[in-house]
């Protein structure tokens, strides 16, 4: 009796394996005979793509465990460098010191813009770089000065470990000051929910994270859209990197290869990023 159940179970598993194999062709084949676990951490902009890729891989082969954590770009770089995770994501190019110190190998699999966002009901939808710099420096502190309501501006920014902050600070603010009154949030998701809840808030998120809950703001007359980031017209853009310590091996290598496959690049595009291939 018992052995019969085992055999039936095995047969069913075999059938499932065959069925799923025929369903997922190509890029995922590499994961067919793999077992083990893969730890990913870092940039929060990457998370939707990582999750979708991990879901597809783990659906095909339940012997693979992929865990995905946030933390921010600096956390990703630090943790992969210390050997705590297999892949460390960063929304900025790791600095030369970081690369040299940890022996990092970088894989840029998509391009992303960083867009300024306000509450969807806010009528201010276009700002010049000078205005943006003044707002984030706290020099302009009322929406009225920008043609909006007579209400104070609530500035939201990201924590020190954020790659999104790094890129925004460098390219939109020209490394200018950020007011000490600014509220700090800790991920792209948290930024989106903070701004979508605050009628007088302003912040910045990855273009891939933008949706109808927040209102996009044009920067120097260019809207933060995929097309504009792709054409290079929208200035505040950055690469999305997945980094490994030394050359990737085993599952990490296969995962990164998958990100660069047609299917992986489609996932990136589906999440609002610009694929590299």
């Amino acid at each position, binding site marked *: 009796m018992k052995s019969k159940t085992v055999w039936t179970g095995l047969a069913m598993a075999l059938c499932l394996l065959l069925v799923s194999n025929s369903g997922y062709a190509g890029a995922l084949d590499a994961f067919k005979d793999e077992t083990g676990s893969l730890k990913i951490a870092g940039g929060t902009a990457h998370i939707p793509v990582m999750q979708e890729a991990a879901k597809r891989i783990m659906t095909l082969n339940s012997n693979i465990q992929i865990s995905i954590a946030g*933390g*921010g770009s*600096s*956390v990703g770089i*630090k943790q992969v460098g210390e050997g705590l995770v297999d892949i460390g994501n960063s929304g900025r190019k790791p600095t030369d010191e*970081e690369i040299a110190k940890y022996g990092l190998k970088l894989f840029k699999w998509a391009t992303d813009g960083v867009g300024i966002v306000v509450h969807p009901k806010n009528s201010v939808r276009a700002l010049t770089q000078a205005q943006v710099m003044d707002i984030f420096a706290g020099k302009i502190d009322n929406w009225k000065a920008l043609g909006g309501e007579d*209400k*104070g501006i*609530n500035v*939201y920014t990201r*924590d*020190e*470990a954020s790659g999104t902050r790094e890129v925004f600070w460098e390219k939109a603010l020209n*490394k200018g*000051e950020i*007011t*000490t*009154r*600014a*509220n*700090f*949030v*800790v991920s792209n998701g948290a930024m989106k*929910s*903070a701004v979508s*809840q*605050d009628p*007088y*808030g302003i912040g910045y998120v990855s273009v891939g994270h933008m949706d109808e809950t927040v209102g996009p703001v044009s920067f120097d007359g260019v809207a933060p859209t995929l097309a504009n980031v792709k054409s290079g017209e929208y200035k505040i853009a950055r690469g999305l990197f997945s980094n490994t310590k030394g050359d990737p091996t085993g599952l990490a290598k296969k995962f990164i290869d998958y990100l660069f496959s047609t299917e992986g690049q489609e996932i990136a595009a589906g999440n609002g990023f610009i694929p590299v291939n």
Partner: protein
Amino acid sequence: MTKIGETIWERLFLLCAIASVVVTVLIFGFMVVLGLPLFKGGHFFYLLTQPWLPSRHAYGIYPMIVGTMFIASLAVAIAFPLSLGCASLISVIAPRPFSRFLRRVVHLMTGVPTVIYGFVGVFLLVPLMRDLFQRGSGMCILSAALMLAVLISPTMILFFADSFEHVPRPYLDAVDALGGRPVQKFIYVMIPCAWRGILTGCILGIGRALGDTLVALMIAGNAIQVPSSPLDSARVLTAHIALVIAADYDSLEFKSIFACGVVLYIFTTIVVLAVRSLGASGRRQEP
């Protein structure tokens, strides 16, 4: 139990006690050693007075110290009358079944994870505060203090209620015999008798409010200014550590959080010492 067995157990417990003491001391040593580069250069006192502007190489934690004290003391100020009222209801005024029910609820509240309070704060309290005061984002000291007050009041209530129940029975009977009402009994007999328990509860509340990370991180706004009003956004020391810990290990930002750790450690030590000395002096004065 045999004599030898007893000795073994005694030694084992002694070992546990020593281990916990050693760990506590080691943690302090660890923070001091890792923060040494800052202490050595005489930067430590700068740290306590400077603002936090990493882009200008100022790594002071003064705004966070002010923020922490502001939020913790405001939270206790809100929680104290709340807890006193609730404790009096539990141990004096309410009828027995209701007070038992209330006590259960308070017990339950002590077990609610702080992240739940954080969530409630973000989605209910913050928008409410924003609409109410029409100033800022609603992420402010007052929001965090209100939420922290809810967080620490169960601890305070239980301490207060316990100390009320330890008021000697004859005192209460005497009040009853004199025809005093329950409220008179509470104000003129129970509070004076139970003041030590009340103080201990308050100090524990302060300790918890000082040490809590998540509530302040989620709803105080984490701005790095020196707060000047309860409606300002502010950052507390614990949230600061959580935000900065992601920085590069070798950076001064990272090293400065050990100074935060030391400051928090000292705060907590002062609180604990205060509890101890109060307990000691109270015992001496006991009739």
